C-alpha cells in the first residue's frame, strides 16, 4: 500500500468515463510501469469502459508515433567531445605568459625610445596618440573576451 501511494501523485480522480479511477494508470499501463495489482485493475477497467479504451488507444498510437521518429542529427564532424590534454593546457599557459611578457617589454622599450628620440614634440604626440588608440581598442576587446571566458563552453575542447 505504501508503494502504491508512492507511485501515484494525488488523489484518485474521475476518469473520462465518469467513474472514480486514477486515469494516470493508463499511462503507467501503457509503459508497463505498474505493479501486478494495478495492472490487473487497469485491464479489468478497460474491458468494461469504452471511453477509457479509446483514450488508451489514442495514447498508444501517440507513443508508437514518437518512438518511430527518426531525426536528422548534426553531422559527426560538428561534434568534438575531447577535452584538452594537460600538456596542451601547459603549453597554452606558457605561450600566453611569454607573449604577454614580450609585449610588455616591447611596449616599454618603444616608450623609452619615443621619449628619448630626436622627434619633435608634435611627432611624438602623433605617434603616442595613434599607438594609444590601437591599445585602447585592443584592451576593450580583451576585457570583453575575459568577461565571457568563465562561461565559454569550448575553452576545454581541443580544436
Amino acid at each position, binding site marked *: 500500500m505504501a508503494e502504491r*501511494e*508512492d*507511485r*501515484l*501523485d*494525488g488523489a484518485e480522480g474521475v476518469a473520462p468515463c465518469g467513474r472514480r479511477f486514477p*486515469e*494516470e*494508470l*493508463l*499511462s*503507467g499501463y501503457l*509503459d508497463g*510501469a505498474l505493479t501486478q495489482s494495478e495492472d490487473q485493475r487497469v485491464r479489468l477497467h478497460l474491458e468494461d469502459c469504452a471511453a477509457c479504451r*479509446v*483514450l488508451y*488507444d*489514442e*495514447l498508444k*498510437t*501517440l*507513443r508508437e*508515433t*514518437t*518512438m*518511430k*521518429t*527518426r*531525426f*536528422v*542529427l*548534426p553531422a559527426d564532424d*560538428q*561534434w*568534438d*567531445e*575531447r*577535452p584538452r590534454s594537460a600538456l596542451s593546457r601547459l603549453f597554452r599557459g606558457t605561450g600566453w605568459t611569454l607573449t604577454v611578457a614580450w609585449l610588455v617589454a616591447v611596449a616599454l622599450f618603444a616608450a623609452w625610445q619615443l621619449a628619448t628620440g630626436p622627434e619633435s614634440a608634435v611627432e611624438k604626440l602623433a605617434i603616442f596618440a595613434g599607438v594609444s588608440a590601437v591599445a585602447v581598442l585592443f584592451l576593450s576587446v580583451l576585457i570583453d573576451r575575459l568577461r565571457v571566458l568563465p*562561461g565559454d*563552453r569550448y575553452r*576545454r*575542447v581541443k580544436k
Partner: protein
Amino acid sequence: MALSQPFPTRPAAPASARSIGPDLTDGELVARARRGDGQAREELARRCRRPAYLLALQLLRDPDDALDVAQDALLRVFTHLDGFEPGRSVQPWLCTIVRNRARDLQRSRRRRPLEPLAGAEGESRREVIDRAPGPEATAAGHQLQARVWRMLAELPAAQREILVLRDYQDLSYDEIAGVLGVPLGTVMSRLHRARKALKELLVADGLTAAGASDG
C-alpha cells in the same frame, strides 16, 4: 630473432582494442573509456549525441543552441567519467546535465525571446525529422511525426521534457524521476497530463484518431 619467421606477426589486440559494438553496456564502455580506449569513447559519444541533442532542442527550440548545450553536456560527461557509478546508465546522467545547461543558457538570455522550434512542415529553417524512406514509416507517417514534434513545442517546458525523456528516449520512470528530481508518482501523473495535452493539441490541429493510426 627467429629468422624462420619472414614477416613480423601483428601482436594480439588488447581487450580494449577489440571491436566495440552496441552489445556493450554503458558501464563497460565507461570502464574502457577511462582506460583511454578511443573506440570506447567514440561509441559512448555516439550513443550520447542523439538523446542530448533532442532534449536540448525541445528545451531551447534552437538547433544551434541545442548543439552547443549537447556538446557541452558530452564534454562534461567525458571530463567526469571517474565519477560515474558502475552499473548505471549514462543517459539519465547526461539528460540531467543537458537540462541544467539549458536552464543556465535560458537564464543568461532571459531578455532575448526564443525563436519557434524548427522541424515542422517546411516552415522551419532546419529540418530535424528524417523523412528518408525507411521500413518503419510511410510518407504519411513522417508527416505525422513532424506534426507531433511541432505540437510538442507548444506544451509547457515541464511537459515537453518529460515527453522527450519517456516517449523519444525511452527512459524508465525511475530514471526520469532522477533526471527531473521528482517523486516516482509525479512522473506518472505528469507524463499522463502531458500526453493528454499533446493529444488535445493534435486534435485541435485537425488530427483524427483515424489519421493518427495511419502513421
